[in-house]
């Protein structure tokens, strides 16, 4: 049977979470179809058809789909569902907002946030903020799943030549209108798939001090993250939050600065390859999972690290 992947995108480019989700789909079928719902997405369709693993790109292009209102997009997905054994979407706020509506429309139970695929009907997902791992099996007619992007590699974007099919827009009566989106602009890598993440917690004490972290992040070409405490305190925007109710990250290097390490935060970053913790409190639980711990005042340590990195660069150049 075929597998349908719902594309996350901004009408111009696919989000990398889509590429991770396609890799998950590869474990289920060779016949992967990518569904792109959006507005003015001809160019996006053209660039997407070269993804090697994708056999067909299905396009629904309509001005009403510009802002991804789930009440409008979910019936279009449900309408296609009978052709597929599995429907996958990234476990991002996009996928979380959308796919459960398809679950309601098809009357099948969705499996959220899978981190592994054992077989066609058996999947692995974290529960309790990742403090337990559950193996689940289902015999439903269609398997609906959101996929944790950091648990699957990004697929190749080139090398393929998929067929493109346009499907008609199905209108639904919707009472919700889009007003605006407040998106922070940054030249730094995207938090969800950066190689290095530098994260700050309540220890930073205020938003001005986060500049220290930005300097360090720029030295390492890293994304910036934050604990819930730092976001709640208004030091930084919600889109930077790493943890159970924020973003999941799994970079090669995660540097936790002034973060105590509540289990809800660890849920979002403990899959990182190398974890560094900098905290003046030696009792902070973050040290229990860190590969390298430094018990020090961050206001001294961070400028020193920047200096050391500069020295290293000088030696190399």
């Amino acid at each position, binding site marked *: 049977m075929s597998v349908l992947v719902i594309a996350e995108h901004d009408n111009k480019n696919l989000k990398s979470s889509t590429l991770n989700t396609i890799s998950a789909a590869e474990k289920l079928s060779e016949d992967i179809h990518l569904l792109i719902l959006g507005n003015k997405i001809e160019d996006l369709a053209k660039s997407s058809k070269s993804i090697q693993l994708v056999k067909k790109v299905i396009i629904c292009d309509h001005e009403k789909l510009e802002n991804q209102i789930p009440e409008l997009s979910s019936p279009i997905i449900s309408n296609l569902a009978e052709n597929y054994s599995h429907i996958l979407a990234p476990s991002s706020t996009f996928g979380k907002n959308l796919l459960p*509506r398809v679950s309601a429309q098809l009357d099948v139970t969705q499996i959220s946030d899978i981190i592994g695929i054992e077989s066609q009907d058996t999947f692995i997902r974290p529960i309790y903020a990742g*403090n337990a*791992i559950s193996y689940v099996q*289902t015999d439903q007619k269609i398997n609906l799943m959101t996929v944790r992007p950091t648990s699957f590699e990004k697929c190749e974007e080139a090398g393929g030549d998929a067929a493109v099919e346009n499907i008609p827009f199905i209108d639904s009566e919707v009472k919700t209108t889009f007003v605006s989106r407040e998106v922070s602009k940054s030249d730094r890598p995207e938090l969800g798939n950066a190689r290095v993440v530098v994260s700050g917690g309540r220890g930073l004490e205020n938003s001005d001090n986060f500049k220290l972290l930005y300097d360090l992040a720029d030295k*390492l070409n890293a994304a910036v993250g934050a604990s819930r405490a730092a976001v709640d305190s208004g030091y930084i925007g919600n889109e930077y939050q790493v943890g159970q109710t924020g973003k999941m990250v799994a970079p090669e290097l995660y540097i936790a600065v002034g973060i105590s390490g509540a289990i809800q935060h660890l849920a979002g970053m403990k899959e990182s390859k190398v974890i560094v913790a900098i905290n003046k409190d030696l009792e902070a639980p973050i040290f229990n999972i860190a590969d390298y*711990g430094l018990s020090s005042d961050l206001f001294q340590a961070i400028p020193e690290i920047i200096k050391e990195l500069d020295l290293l660069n000088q030696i190399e150049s």
Partner: protein
Amino acid sequence: MKVLVAVKRVVDYKVQIRVKSDNSGVETQNVKMSVNPPDENAIEEAVKLKEQGLANEIISVSIGDDKSQDVLRTSMAMGIDRSILVKSQNTLEPLAVAKTLKIIIDKEKPDLVLMGKQAIDDDSNQTGQILSALLNWPQGCFISNLKIENNKVFISREIDEGIENLETSLPAVLTCDLRLNTPRFASLPNIMKAKKKPLETIDIDTLGIDTSSKIKTLKVIEPPKRKAGIMVNDVKELVQKLKYEAKVI
């Protein structure tokens, strides 16, 4: 306006959970249980709407065994007027939870349904979205701000890219982020008063819906433990280790 809040009883967020030795699930016996944290935000928002004169009746609903009365009493101590417990011995999947809530909503006819954006035990993040689709009411998920004026609903949603602002109308289903508000502590007099507030019990078997599990849990295991690392003495050592040992910079 009438507001209905859905509340789940979960293992308290501070508890370090333990996987059962037979790998059948997570130990919930003799463990501190509490209101699911974002559901507390939903309760708080309902109470605020009543205090502002926008809501005239606020009710809470939970699905679970008799012990779930605790979380309903907590909600009433925070200011909820009355509660409904739908009694079920089994743990329900989100689709079954939403179907159960829909029956209660068809009967109670609230104008607004509030709940947490996810339960911190199962982490599914589905019920509000499913309920919205079943009711064919507008959906607002992961909200961190809510304003209601003349039947118009203005919400801010926390999304991966930042904040999204939407306008919609009542009736609606909204799921709450932890940043929506700061839930109040129930005072002792209010805890005493809550004991006298009405709590209706309905047996789930009388609702005539299929709440059986569609997903079988084969096993639950502990996640791989990270190996204990080392403490470095100073910044110089840290940078050297990252460069030449871990080779990540």
